[in-house]
């Protein structure tokens, strides 16, 4: 592509991205407005900046242990992400590379199971988790999450898109399947694994129904659920609502930005990608 074309493309993509970002920026700005100014759409940027919405939330310490919820969320989402990426990449390797007999048919069953509305699982899962005595513990949020088919389906399709030639060369050189998996396949699939990791983390962080149904004690809630429950009591105070939303999402954004650097670095280290 010619140089002028490249510059135009970059400018055009930034313009589109700005449209996507505008509602987010508006939300962040509005959370710093005093209540009297909140619903005035004439000025996006606050005339008077105030931290009162945030101070109000942090003042809850007694009935809403913000720090504790934050810790719960990090613990649950990190555990789920590590387990899902590990288990899914192993399974995808077994299906697409080791060609486990019946593996593709099994993947078909897994994908079909994703077509059943998740709400359907809620009652049976509750009964099972109570049998295991896992209710009101992080296990209830972590272990069942590893059974989702999304990760296996995604990584299988990504592995199919990577030519097998490099792995075949490694096998001819005498590598065992385990060595090929860790030293060749996983580095080759790093971008897709990082992408799956980001999606899994976000999905787990934002899971609403699970913590709501499986957790009893307030101190065991995850951050978005804990915050949302306190949000309902002042639903009409819009600035406060947006401030809580920002606080529930901000840690997630920081994690994504850290992950994004990881994606770029892992690609550079394989020496195969741009």
């Amino acid at each position, binding site marked *: *592509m010619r140089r002028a074309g*490249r510059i135009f*493309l*970059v400018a*055009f*993509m930034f313009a*589109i*991205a700005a449209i*996507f*970002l505008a*509602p*987010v920026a*508006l*939300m962040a700005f509005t959370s710093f407005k005093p209540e009297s100014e909140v*619903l005035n*759409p004439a000025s996006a940027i606050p005339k008077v900046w105030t931290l009162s919405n945030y101070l109000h939330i942090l003042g809850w310490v007694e009935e809403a242990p913000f720090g504790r919820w934050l810790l719960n969320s990090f613990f649950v989402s990190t555990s789920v992400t590590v387990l899902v990426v590990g*288990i899914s990449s*192993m399974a995808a390797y*077994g*299906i697409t590379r*080791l060609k*486990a007999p019946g*593996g593709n048919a099994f993947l078909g069953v*897994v*994908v*079909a*199971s994703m077509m*059943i*509305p*998740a*709400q*359907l*699982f809620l009652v*049976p899962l509750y009964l*099972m988790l109570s049998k295991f005595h896992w209710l009101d513990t992080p296990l209830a949020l972590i*272990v069942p999450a*590893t*059974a989702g*088919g*999304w990760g*296996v*389906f*995604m990584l299988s*399709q*990504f592995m*199919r*898109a990577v030519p097998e030639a490099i792995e075949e060369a490694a096998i001819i050189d005498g590598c065992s399947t385990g060595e090929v998996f860790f030293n060749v396949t996983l580095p080759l699939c790093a*971008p*897709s694994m990082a992408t799956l990791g980001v*999606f899994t983390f976000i999905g787990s962080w*934002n899971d609403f129904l699970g913590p709501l149904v499986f957790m009893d004690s307030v101190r065991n809630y995850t951050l*978005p659920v804990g915050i*949302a429950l306190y949000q309902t009591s002042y639903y009409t105070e819009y600035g406060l609502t947006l401030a809580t939303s920002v606080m529930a*999402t901000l840690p*997630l*954004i920081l994690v*994504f930005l850290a992950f*994004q650097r990881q994606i770029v670095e892992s*690609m550079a280290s394989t020496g195969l*990608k741009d």
Partner: protein
Amino acid sequence: MTYLQERKLTGWLYLAPFVVAFTTFVIVPIGVSLWLSVMRFDLTSRESVSFVGLQNFQDALKDDYFWQAMKATLWFAVLMIPSMLILALSLALGMHAMNRGRNVVRAMLFLPGMFNVAVAGILWQWFYNGEFGLFNFWLKGAGLAPQPWLSDRGFAMPSIVLMSLWWSVGGTSVVILAALQQIPKQIFEAATLDGAAYFPLLSKITLPLLRPVLMFVVVTNTIGAFQVFGQPFLLTRGGPELSTRGVVQYIYETAFNNYRMGYGAAMSWLLFLVIALFALVQYRFLRRGHQ
């Protein structure tokens, strides 16, 4: 044991952790819900747990509300799936061709998807609000008539689709971009050296290499569209006149507001059949393109 037999066995060894989790937390609950779907199981009246055979399914097929919900779901899917795919693929190709600033653009596009659906819903309710909403404020400012974004039968569903695109198109385009970045660069370089122009390169090399990942994107987006719940539930509660109440919302209300577990399970299985049918057609279509 021969090498090949050993390799096959190793395949299932790698699959084992997932198989255990899947059996325990998916297959077993599926069994329970199949059992529920042939039972009359109303939590409001304890004594009435009884086997009713296919009665729940027959009831659903005669239930006008069920068909209305199915129609709303189909309308959402028809509007959502093609616009989602075209937009996400274009954005991914655009990002892939960028020689600078790609990571910033990716982060900006991806950001909306990080808000949980409740937050996104609250935000867009304000944008769409008829009296003090942002969009009508702009329209009035430009000298145009304000629009009934969420309060009109014709407007409500497209408005929900618009919000859904904003919320989720970035995620899909990030998946496609990851697939594009996984294609070894040498392939593009070789084709460019041979003098291939952008669009022939796209249709002859890039898209065929992307096919497995596009298949994933199409199937998961179809499933997502047919199971739409959060966005209409938060923006319109299914209104006006139930025109945006999808099947999952109806199932949710049946099972968790009216506690009719058996009937809810049966409707879930009917929805499953519709989704499976659509996914199968798409799968065949994409496979045929392969040969």
